[in-house]
């Protein structure tokens, strides 16, 4: 009995704690840096991981001397808009590829996956031109329309896998009882696939929240930026990294995502491990 407790400590809890420390350390550093006064921050002979004079001056600077509130608002609007747009397309696309089995559906499935592999680095210049022609430069709509270029393939691929795990017999039953395809999708598949849809939603939201390149290219005025771009462009002045406000911003910027994760965590794990029990 005692031995097995020891073994489980060594093989399970020890690696688990090591992993946890490794993963949480950057957040700890972020927090400490955000509350250390500048005098300590730029003095490298001091201990970088502790402070004896915690201060809120960086948060004050971030909130009142930069455009953090509009950035947060923009990021939220863009992430939500792009996610909703992408998911409403992806649900239908995934259903069609997975269930309708028309000629070439397999090829289309692979093509969707391949289009996810095309990095934004290739796409940003052509897209910049399109955005310009549409007159969407420097508007949130520019990003809401461009983020689905990587969100739709990603979400479609994820949902295809999830739809596949749902027994097709359930749908056949509903079809026999006279339901149309759309009714099957709405009343049978969507409720069953809710965990998958939620995880696609969270992933899409996080991806668009963190996106940097498109946001950097398509938004130019200070007030219309997103959090990652705003922080990196306004708080790195030349070669001077204003670590305090930067870290405070990173901390506040990661709070909404963390909240969403913790809110949906059960569904999200179920969505990843997939598989409805028959």
């Amino acid at each position: 009995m005692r031995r097995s407790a020891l073994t489980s400590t060594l093989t399970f809890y020890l690696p688990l704690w090591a992993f946890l420390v490794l993963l949480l350390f950057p957040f700890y550093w972020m927090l400490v840096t955000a509350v250390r006064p500048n005098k300590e921050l730029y003095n490298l002979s001091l201990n970088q991981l502790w402070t004896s004079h915690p201060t809120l001056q960086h948060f004050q600077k971030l909130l009142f001397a930069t455009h953090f509130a509009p950035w947060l608002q923009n990021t939220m609007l863009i992430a939500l808009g792009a996610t909703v747009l992408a998911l409403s397309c992806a649900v239908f696309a995934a259903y069609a590829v997975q269930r309708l089995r028309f000629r070439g559906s397999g090829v289309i499935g692979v093509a969707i996956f391949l289009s996810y592999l095309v990095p934004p680095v290739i796409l940003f210049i052509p897209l910049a031109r399109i955005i310009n022609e549409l007159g969407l430069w420097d508007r949130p709509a520019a990003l809401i329309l461009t983020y689905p270029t990587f969100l739709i393939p990603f979400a479609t691929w994820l949902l295809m896998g999830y739809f596949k795990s749902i027994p097709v017999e359930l749908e056949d039953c509903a079809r026999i009882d006279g339901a149309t395809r759309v009714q099957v999708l709405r009343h049978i598949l969507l409720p069953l696939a809710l965990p998958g849809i939620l995880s696609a939603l969270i992933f899409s939201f996080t991806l668009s929240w963190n996106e940097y390149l498109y946001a950097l290219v398509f938004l130019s005025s200070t007030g219309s930026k997103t959090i990652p771009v705003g922080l990196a462009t306004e708080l790195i002045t030349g070669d001077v990294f204003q670590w305090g406000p930067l870290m405070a911003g990173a901390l506040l910027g990661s709070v909404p995502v963390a909240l969403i994760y913790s809110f949906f965590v059960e569904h999200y794990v179920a969505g990843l491990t997939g598989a409805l029990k028959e």
Partner: protein
Amino acid sequence: MVTVFSTIMTVGDFQLIWIITHGGPANATHLFGTLAYQRAIQGGFIGEGAAISAFVLPVLVGAVMVSFHYLRRE
């Protein structure tokens, strides 16, 4: 598959490089993405930037072909 994925993601990386070094010092840390951004958006040479970013394509195609080769063999 993971290798292919990470190859593509690394070659097409932008934000890490741009935030940490901006491709400097003296252009020593540029990747295709950062150089293309610098030429096309900051420098105004759209064509040159597009040409640079097109150089990611051979890597992409190569990686995809490798992955298909192994997928088919399995």
